[in-house]
């Protein structure tokens, strides 16, 4: 059995990625459950994962079981409890002790994480991939070309600057909504502003791309594998964002916006759940077979 420890059920991309990973692994016949401190499951997205409270785990734990971690503070408190495996969803310095521990196999979600672990710690990882929910993919519903979706939780100052410089656009905040409402909002928006500086992967930007938004983003660490500036999005330093937004939203750029949207959806198709499931199935036959306990 694999027990995947999570710090909580809040509105964070990492929680969704973890629960979806559990759902996929479980559908492939791997015995895996999510472990949350109070046993309460996230209720802001659709998934299929069994959930346990932490106190329920300890009596069940055997020597054959794996403890999967993704949140750096879990490492010191769990490393003496059993065999650890890390589902890497970030490469900040807090993760370094985990990467340095040769006994902890690393499963990486994206290319940059694999690259970082290889360069900084001389280790290889198993690339298990990352996916976005199917509900985000654009279904042909009406899209408002001038509507700019954004998430005010991170980079609010930057958004304010964009608003000030581009008053004629229709801004649509996304905050505290469940996954279905977010997907509806993104599908109706023509543009998406990704303003979270220092983001690891930037899942919301990828979800916006799947929903057919032309994305304007600040640079992110892991997101460079899908954000290709000038091809399917515009990347710019935080100070350049208001200008980029003004330029891309001009009537003269209508064709480019449509092109970005089409390419964005095509790019996002590489991150479908069915694709990640296929990848995991292949890995479980070979490199990850040790997880089938």
């Amino acid at each position: 059995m694999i027990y995947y420890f999570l710090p909580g059920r809040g509105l964070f991309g990492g929680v969704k990625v973890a629960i979806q990973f559990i759902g996929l692994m479980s559908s492939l016949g791997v015995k895996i459950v999510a472990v949350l401190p109070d046993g309460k499951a996230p209720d802001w997205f659709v998934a299929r994962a069994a959930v346990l409270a932490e106190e329920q785990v300890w009596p069940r734990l055997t020597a054959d079981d794996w403890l999967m971690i993704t949140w750096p503070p879990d490492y010191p408190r769990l490393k003496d409890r059993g065999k650890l495996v890390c589902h890497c969803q970030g490469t900040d310095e807090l993760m370094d002790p985990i990467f340095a521990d040769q006994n902890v196999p690393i499963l990486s979600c994206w290319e940059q994480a694999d690259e970082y672990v290889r360069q900084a710690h001389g280790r290889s990882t198993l690339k298990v991939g990352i996916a976005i929910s199917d509900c985000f993919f654009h279904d042909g519903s009406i899209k408002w070309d001038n509507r700019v979706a954004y998430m005010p939780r991170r980079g609010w100052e930057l958004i304010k600057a964009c608003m000030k410089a581009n008053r004629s656009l229709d801004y649509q905040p996304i905050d505290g909504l469940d996954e279905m409402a977010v997907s509806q909002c993104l599908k109706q928006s023509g543009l998406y502003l990704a303003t979270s500086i220092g983001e690891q992967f930037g899942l919301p930007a990828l979800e916006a791309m799947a929903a057919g938004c032309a994305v304007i983003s600040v640079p992110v660490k892991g997101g460079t594998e899908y954000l290709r500036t000038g091809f399917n999005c515009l990347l710019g330093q935080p100070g350049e964002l208001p200008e980029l937004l003004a330029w891309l939203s001009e009537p003269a750029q209508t064709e480019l916006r449509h092109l970005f949207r089409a390419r964005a959806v095509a790019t996002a198709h590489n991150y479908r759940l069915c694709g990640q499931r296929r990848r995991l199935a292949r890995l479980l036959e070979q490199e990850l077979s040790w997880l089938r306990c």
Partner: protein
Amino acid sequence: MAEVLENPTVTVIVISRDSPLQAHFCLWCLRHALVLSLPFCQCQVVLMDNGSRRPYPEFEFKRSMPMELIRLDRAACWAGLVNLGSRRYPADFYFILDQNILLSEQVLSGSMGFCRMQADAGVVAPVLLNPNGAIYQAGLTLTRTGPVAAEKGRWPQHKQTLPKEVQAVGGRCMLLRNEVLSDLGGLDETAGLAEVDLCLRARQCGWRVFCLQQYCALCVAPPNEETLDRSWSAMQKFRSRWVNRYTLDQL
């Protein structure tokens, strides 16, 4: 993970109350289903008379097919009946059947065949149909407020021929692996909606739950007012224990 059993034993637990005629119909359909399952398994049928006002006459039922009758003086809950049946007639699998469910011939053999192939399938159930052919229940969908019947009122479609993994299935017709019961220490008789409680706890132990969309059974009597009242209180009990403790299904 369960081993593939060569010739597994199955105890079919038929739960009935106050309706010997309906029980006869149910057993008549079961008999046909048993014929097809004979090459795969050894079946034993147990009819549970769940506190009927006029106790079921044993000879009348035994005349139609070999079976055991357990007669309870007072009605017990679903979980209690399954626990009792499984304790008294232990087997590798338990097929639990409500008197109002009429099986199609392939359900039992198909479910057994599926469990033999899918060693981590702990609980499986067929699709239940209304008498008009529309779906009554194809597994359960877990919502914020509790479980609801999945696909209710829709018409079965040709594409729905693959087993669907779900978080829970209803208890009126289900096949249950004995190892699941051993892992869980039996069903919890104090739980509201014991069948959903069973499925969720089984999933916590790594077992998987499936709705076999290729097999169907007919549900001839929807719940009456009395059962609805009971299920309302069961739902309250279920919520107090489980709400927020499972992930949500797509509606």
